[in-house]
């Protein structure tokens, strides 16, 4: 076999392998979506969204309380993580001298890789022991997860803002902080939003930290953040441990709802990013 022919064959083989690998990745997602939808779709109805969990042993009921609780938890977590994350990113890209920026960057990357169970037990020790489980403890744990995601995403869009824009503003005699507020942040708002949406999608599905901080909750809609808030991930976990097949189906349905939310959020994030890119370079 000539050398040239062999190279062509190797090339072809690698191409096929890579394509297969990509197909496997897509197939995994497809299988998950299809199996969850098949098992859970039957339980999805109007009542499923509007009714709270049924009392123990009673049929029917929905996930309204968990939906409200998850929304509250994520909202609260975003309120905590967004300002800190964005300010951290601004500090790192606009103000920090190199010898400080590098170690802080490492810390943020480590934080992003921290197992969520570790964050859960840390917040448990910090806010739950000696008190009770509460919505704000859960939100705080989720915020710790979101913080590095938002900081990282924000940093990336801030770096996309051309340095010529910073120069233009500084050459007008505008202070650095006003430059950040008036020129840099407006140009990167879309990207920051994208990062936040993705972080929200991630936090909405996190279970481990909530098991420690917000898992013993009432069957009714709960908006008091000083008490444990019902939430979707823990509901899925507890329902799946019940002997009742109807609850199993509800767990699948709740998983379907969660997954649909994450998919929609990712799509929205993609659209937002495309729009903000266009704004900088139409």
């Amino acid at each position: 076999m000539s050398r040239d022919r062999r190279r062509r064959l190797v090339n072809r083989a690698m191409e096929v392998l890579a394509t297969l690998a990509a197909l496997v990745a897509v197939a995994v997602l497809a299988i998950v979506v299809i199996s969850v939808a098949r098992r859970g779709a039957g339980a999805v109805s109007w009542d499923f969204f509007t009714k709270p969990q049924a009392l123990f042993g009673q049929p029917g009921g929905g996930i309204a309380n968990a939906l409200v609780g998850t929304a509250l938890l994520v909202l609260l977590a975003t309120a905590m993580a967004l300002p800190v994350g964005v300010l951290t990113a601004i500090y790192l890209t606009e103000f920090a001298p190199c010898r400080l920026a590098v170690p802080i960057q490492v810390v943020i990357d480590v934080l992003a890789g921290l197992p969520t169970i570790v964050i859960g037990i840390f917040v448990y020790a910090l806010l739950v022991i000696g008190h009770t489980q509460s919505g704000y403890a859960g939100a705080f744990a989720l915020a710790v997860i979101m913080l590095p995601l938002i900081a990282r995403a924000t940093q990336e869009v801030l770096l996309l803002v051309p340095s010529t824009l910073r120069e233009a503003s500084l050459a007008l005699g505008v202070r650095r902080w006003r430059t950040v507020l008036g020129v840099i942040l407006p140009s990167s708002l879309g990207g920051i939003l994208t990062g936040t949406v993705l972080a929200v999608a991630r936090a909405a599905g996190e279970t481990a930290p909530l098991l420690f901080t917000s898992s013993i909750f009432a069957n009714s809609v709960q908006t008091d953040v000083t008490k444990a808030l019902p939430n979707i991930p823990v509901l899925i976990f507890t329902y799946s441990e019940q002997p009742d097949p109807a609850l199993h189906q509800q767990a699948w349905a709740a998983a379907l709802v969660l997954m649909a939310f994450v998919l929609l959020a990712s799509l929205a994030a993609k659209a937002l990013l495309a729009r903000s890119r266009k704004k900088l370079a139409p």
Partner: protein
Amino acid sequence: MTGSFTIAPVIDVAQARKDAHPGPREVVFDIQDLTVNYGRLTAISGVDLQIYRNVITAIIGPSGCGKSTFIRCLNRMNDLVPGTRIEGQILYQGADLYASGVDPVEVRRRIGMVFQKANPFPKSIYDNVGWGPRVLGMRNDLDERVEKALRSAALWDEVKDRLKKNALSLSGGQQQRLCIARAIAVEPEVLLLDEPASALDPIATSAIEELMHELKRDYTLVIVTHNMQQAARVADLTAFFSLEVDEDRRSGVLVEYDSTNKIFTNPSDKRTEDYVTGRFG
């Protein structure tokens, strides 16, 4: 870059201009023995130069001779480059620009700058011009101020019906004039232009050059250009920088500084003559 066929027009234009401004001139910048280092590299060394009020001063020279470095010292834009070290003195209206109590932000506020590549903010045309004054507390009569700046930049008639449109929708030449409008909207005393027309076509370039003649009445202008014809067309005074190589050390030096006419028709230094006649550079 420049072939010998360009000699004739350069000299013609320069002769046509003659000395436009006789009489005593007020010194705005008095630069004494200026040396700038980036880390261990020397960008320019030992520059002595005076820049006069309401005069256009052109800085010409081959690439890498420190023209941009020099002009960026005049409004302390080089402060933003880590590792920059400045020796010597730059007196602005008698005060040392680099004295310890001087706020570089205030310096830039009074000495405006236009860059090589047009860099409008991704905002509306109106906001590009109005944002600076608004942030700097010049809020009253903002509409008039914006209009005045756009008129001064000879852009008003082209954009008056679409002030709310994004500035990035303008053409390259319009964007650069918008940047000039933005710079003069905050009423600086000096305008520094760092190769403002190098990315523009000839028509847009001549619009900018015409504009500079207009602006001369109210501002002191310093323009860096590697286009000799441009220097000959617009400048009253021209400084020629060159690259000096001395035992592995390369640095930009000021070779000759005189009226534009003299530089282009009868330079005193051989190096200047070689450059303006297109023998190198």
